[in-house]
């Protein structure tokens, strides 16, 4: 028990990312509405982004932009002073991919709606089966 | 979609200066937009080396080219500057009004028997303002000040306002309209 609490606190971000991810996953599996699933999908993606960003955090470091500005190229830079920029870069990509997926998914929803006039998966399937 | 009566009503309320003729290009609006934009650019950028300035130049030109007709829907610029200056002078007064109104609202919010104090209602009145910007300023000012929110404005100056209690409702149009009318009066 005495070890458990520090573990929980030291990795709070990781627990939350798992929670969020599971919320998203649950929504994607269990929800019946297509748009709801998309919401779940986005939560799922953001959870992963949260995870990555949490990797990049460093105690006592500042944001990954040089304080020196353009001119001060040759001052010594201490890596420990700055946050790890790599996960940030990766996550920029992930966010953009997320919005791209979102756009495509919504476009598909629109097409489906115009065809079946509903967004509930079971109703759509019932319509398909009837044919 | 629309209720028939309402549709007619709404249609009659139309402002006349919907941005049209996007293709036409006027030089003076362009220039003024450009200058305003460049000012903002310098503020935002904070870098005054040639590289960034030239970037700013290009950016401002792009924005001015794209959107000068949004900032200045009509090419007639006479008196706009005066109006703008007067509008700036109006702002401090508005801030004070805002402050006063908020004190009242805080009182309402935090009062334990708030439900008894308030008496919401929707009132209608007609404003004498005729310029579009004037109407919008007035509407936004109403929204920001004592217990009132503009629900709807027509281009003729018909206001529909939601007021939180009777006192607030009674204070309209009041002093504010006069002040704004002063700002937007013809030069």
């Amino acid at each position, binding site marked *: 028990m005495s070890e458990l609490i520090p573990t929980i606190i030291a990795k709070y971000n990781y627990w939350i990312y798992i929670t969020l991810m599971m919320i998203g996953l649950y929504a994607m599996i269990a929800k019946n509405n297509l748009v709801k699933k998309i919401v779940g999908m986005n939560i799922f993606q953001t959870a992963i982004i949260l995870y990555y960003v949490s990797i990049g955090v460093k105690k006592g470091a500042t944001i990954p932009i040089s304080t020196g500005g353009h001119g001060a190229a040759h001052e010594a830079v201490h890596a420990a002073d700055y946050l790890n920029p790599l996960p940030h870069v990766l996550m920029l990509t992930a966010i953009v991919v997320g919005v791209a997926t979102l756009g495509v998914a919504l476009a598909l929803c629109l097409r489906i709606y115009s065809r079946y006039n509903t967004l509930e998966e079971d109703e759509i399937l019932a319509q398909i089966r009837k044919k | 979609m629309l209720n028939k009566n309402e549709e007619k009503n709404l249609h009659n309320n139309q402002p006349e200066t919907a941005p049209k003729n996007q293709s036409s290009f006027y030089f003076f609006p362009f220039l003024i937009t450009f200058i305003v934009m460049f000012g*903002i650019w310098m*503020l*935002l950028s*904070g870098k005054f080396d040639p590289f960034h300035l030239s970037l700013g130049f290009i950016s401002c030109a792009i924005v001015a080219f794209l959107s000068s007709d949004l900032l200045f829907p009509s090419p007639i610029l006479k008196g706009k500057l005066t109006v703008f200056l007067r509008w700036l002078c109006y702002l401090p007064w508005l801030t004070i009004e*805002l*402050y006063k*109104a*908020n004190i009242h*609202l*805080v009182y*309402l*919010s*935090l009062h334990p028997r*708030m*439900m008894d104090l*308030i*008496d*919401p*209602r*929707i009132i209608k009145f007609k404003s004498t303002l005729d310029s579009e910007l004037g109407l919008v300023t007035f*509407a*936004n*000012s109403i*929204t*920001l*000040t004592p*217990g009132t*929110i*503009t*629900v*709807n404005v027509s281009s003729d100056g018909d206001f*529909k306002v*939601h007021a*939180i209690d009777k006192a607030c409702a009674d204070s309209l149009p009041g002093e504010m309209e006069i002040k704004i009318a002063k700002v937007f009066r013809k030069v």
Partner: protein
Amino acid sequence: MDIFVCILLFSGLFFLTAGSIGILRFPDFYSRLHPAGKLDTLGTLLAMLGLALFNLHHFSLGALLTSLKIMLIIIFVFVASPTATHAIVDAGVRAGLAPWTKGEKRR
């Protein structure tokens, strides 16, 4: 200076608090918009003003510009907030929401 900043900041926070409480307590959608539209605007305004002032502590051109940028945000909020409030209330009217009148139950 710090005290002045603190006063501004805290009064801003105070208005924001009142706004939040107001949003919770007012009985219907229209009346809730009052605290949301006004108190939040003012609260933001004051708090930001304080922060902009604080930023001028170590005065330099950069700091001044930053403070001016914060002022820019203030102006933006000043224009955008009533517009957003209006948009929401307009939506309520179009949605056909009847305003609460005295004596009704809280909605």
